[in-house]
């Protein structure tokens, strides 16, 4: 599998996702970091990752400037061709700002940056990102964000539920940010574009953060 990791000014988790993918079995030669000023994504790319961080210093709104970076035109057209796109944390915010996912991520309800482990629930395994997981299964993963409070109009939330597009939820008693429907991760209607707030890439090493996140990478790589 060929994977392109997009790097914006302020992105800081590109090496975390790269390490998680190498741990999961991806050859380093199949992983490429792509600077946001680039105007092409390598041919035969199977997965594009928008990693976490603080692109453009979170100016204006989180992800708003990155959503208009030159490379995002290519990300959008790749997504339209069916290339899988995974946005984690700031990547999720960029996907919402660019219109690849509905809704928006507002400031955490408690107004604080939250950096801790949370309890997640697999809300569906009908996705290339969760097919090796069990629906309803709980896992612990770290979050580290200031703007993770998912918000969308009531009709959009109803549609996400009706179409089984909520992939990960916070446990009802462990919602760290006030997110609607306890949403931690949603997939688009093509079921190829996932936005995810928790850092499952930081839950792939038994020495640091546990290995609960490995099931997502196993799902991506070993359908």
């Amino acid at each position: 599998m060929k994977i392109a990791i997009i790097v914006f000014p302020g992105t800081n988790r590109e090496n975390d996702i790269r390490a998680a993918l190498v741990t999961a079995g991806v050859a380093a030669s199949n992983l490429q970091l792509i600077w946001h000023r680039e105007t092409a994504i390598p041919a035969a790319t199977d997965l594009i990752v928008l990693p976490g961080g603080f692109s453009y210093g979170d100016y204006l709104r989180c992800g708003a400037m990155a959503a208009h970076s030159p490379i995002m035109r290519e990300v959008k057209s790749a997504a339209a061709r069916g290339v899988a796109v995974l946005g984690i944390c700031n990547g999720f915010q960029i996907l919402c700002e660019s219109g690849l996912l509905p809704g928006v991520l507002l400031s955490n309800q408690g107004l604080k940056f939250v950096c801790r482990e949370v309890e997640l629930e697999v809300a569906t395994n009908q996705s290339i990102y969760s097919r090796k997981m069990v629906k309803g299964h709980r896992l612990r993963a770290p979050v580290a964000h200031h703007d993770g409070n998912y918000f969308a109009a009531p009709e959009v939330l109803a549609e996400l539920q009706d179409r089984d597009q909520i992939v990960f939820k916070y446990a009802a008693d462990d919602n760290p940010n006030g997110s609607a429907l306890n949403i931690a991760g949603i997939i688009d209607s093509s079921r190829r574009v996932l936005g995810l707030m928790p850092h499952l890439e930081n839950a792939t090493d038994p020495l640091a953060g546990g290995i609960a996140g490995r099931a997502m990478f196993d799902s991506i790589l070993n359908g």
Partner: protein
Amino acid sequence: MIKAQIFVTLRAGVLDPQGSAIGHTLNGLGFAELSSIRQGKYYEVELATDDRKLAQAQLEKYCQTVIANPVIESFRIEIL
């Protein structure tokens, strides 16, 4: 040259924790009459044109594409 102002405000129903925090602080200082305060954003813009109609159209595009997110915000443009 045309000068303009853009006001971006959160739509009704969108939580504004910063506005709430500011309100709590003002209430705590004794300003008991304050019942609601919502935080927004304000921009000062200059356009290198004298065509007010064009300016209005372009300013709306700025807001729709970058400056405001229609999911949570609405905007108001004032050409001076």
